[in-house]
């Protein structure tokens, strides 16, 4: 396809799969955390806020190492997952998805939290007087109103996941077909003599994928915003 080599196709497919799964798994959690941070009043809120933002300020390699310690075969979560379900995280594409999700999480939470804070709570009160229970109000009023924020968060997180490098290579290494996503493939190519041309092609492909994601986000966000206006 388009004269791409197997290695290149593999890297593209893997990158998309890792980013999509990473975003899909973290989205419900991000909405929940954004809700807690925007609306919740509980002790330790500042701690939670800090924890969520940590991947944004830590060196990605450090995050990758922490993930390796937790999810490795000897790690607390990794050992349990393997013993119970025979699921291996470290050095697999699942681990790459987790690394991508963790690194992109703060961006997603921020976007959703901002739109939650902008929701007119009087509309939610009106929904209550019309007979809706709190969970119903969330699904029928709050969620549609924050849709533009969710779309922005998802696209930001998706783009961040596509570009994830440091945490991924530390946590799940650079295994062709398993964990060698686009950035890792580019890195590998420029390490070896004669790979510059292919590396440049992958860079261009990265540009195209990123632009496409941004375009889709723009269209979706406009459509969602138009639904909220006259």
């Amino acid at each position, binding site marked *: 396809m388009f004269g791409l080599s197997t290695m290149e196709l593999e890297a593209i497919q893997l990158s998309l799969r890792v980013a999509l799964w990473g975003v899909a798994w973290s989205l419900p959690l991000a909405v929940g955390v954004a809700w807690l941070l925007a609306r919740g009043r509980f002790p330790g809120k500042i701690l939670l806020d800090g924890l969520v933002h940590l991947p944004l300020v830590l060196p990605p390699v450090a995050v990758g190492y922490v993930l390796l310690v937790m999810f490795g075969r000897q790690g607390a979560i990794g050992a349990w997952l393997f013993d119970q379900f025979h699921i291996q995280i470290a050095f697999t594409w699942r681990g790459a998805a987790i690394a991508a999700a963790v690194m992109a999480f703060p961006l997603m939470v921020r976007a959703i939290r901002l739109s939650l804070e902008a929701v*007119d709570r*009087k*509309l939610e*009160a*009106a*929904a*209550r*007087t*019309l*007979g*809706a*229970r709190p969970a*119903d109000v969330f699904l*029928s*009023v709050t969620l*549609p*109103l924050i*849709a533009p924020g969710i779309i922005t968060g998802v696209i930001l997180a998706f783009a961040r996941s596509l570009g994830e490098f440091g945490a991924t290579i530390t946590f799940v290494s650079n295994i062709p077909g398993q964990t060698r996503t686009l950035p890792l493939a580019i890195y590998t190519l420029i390490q070896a003599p004669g790979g510059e041309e292919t590396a440049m092609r992958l860079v261009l492909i990265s540009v195209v994928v990123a632009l496409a994601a941004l375009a889709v986000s723009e269209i979706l966000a406009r459509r969602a915003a138009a*639904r*909220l*206006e*006259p």
Partner: protein
Amino acid sequence: MTTTPPLLEIDISHVTAGLSLDISLNISGQSAVSGITALFGRSGAGKTSLINLMAGLARPDRGRIVLGDRVLFDSERGIDLPPEQRRMGYVFQEGRLFPHLNVRGNLEYGMKRRAGNGRGLSFDRVAGLLDLGHLLERRPGGLSGGEKQRVAIGRALLSNPELLLLDEPLASLDAGRKNEILPFLERLRDDPGIPMIYVSHNMEEIVRLADVMVLISEGRVLASGDVEELLSRLDLRPLTGRFEAGSVIAATLAGHDETFGLSRLAFAGGELLAPRVDLPLDTALRVRIRARDVTLATRKPVQMGAQNIYRGTILQMEPDTGSRMEVLLDIGVPLWARLSAKSAQELKLAVGMSAYAVVKSVAIDGHSLGRRRITGGGAGM
């Protein structure tokens, strides 16, 4: 008089930022149960806070709220129904339509969530009553202020409430839009007969719509009862009168004078000629007569361009701001007149003196007339 169970019993105290509410109120009687009860007071008096407490959007510090036979809140028994179980429709001052739904979606929101067996007014009936048929597919953002409020009223009605709370629904509208909505409110009052509590600080709206009135000042109920009765009470005048100087009298439509296009309204002081009122004979009316449309004479005027002349005794004289004087006359009902301080002096007016009040018949128009409903009962403290 038949004993109708009270519509609403409230006995609560509540302290919010800058206001301490201490309300004891019993709204009962035929005219409240099937009509409009006005909650009147200046801004900041606690009107909106009070209906938020009724709707369950805020929680009183202590007390009891009972709607019909249902206890909505009782601090002693630990009862506090959430808003969605109170069955109070709420029309907010700013409409609060859902921006992500079109008009139809907004109207159906409460209808889909009706309690119990889903009885109540049908969608088509409400759309018809409020003339919403042509707006159904529109978005709230593109509606005019008046249209938005009509949708908000329809949305609340369709949730099948036991009581409809309206928080100054016309306050954000200009005069033209107000007059566009008032007939709809009159229609709702007369037809489905859902009891309504109407918060307002506009006396014109109250005279036109409400039969029963509750006066609120600084978080307390100052008085409650029939609108005409409360508005003729002198002791309440600092509260009721400063906004719209005038008197409100109860009258019935006695007949028409076809030649001149006039109607005769009978009241306790005689008959009042007004521009033709297109209502059936014997309709009970409430007439607001502004003080500036009433002038006084010490001798019976002859050859004057006003037909409404009444003899009465001066009860009270109050210098108004600046050069004016407001005079209260007992002509069978209390009637306020406003004249210049200079004329008052020239006429040598004094309390206890007898005088003639002259009311311009053209002064009475559609805005000063309200239909009274079967009275009896009212609100008690």
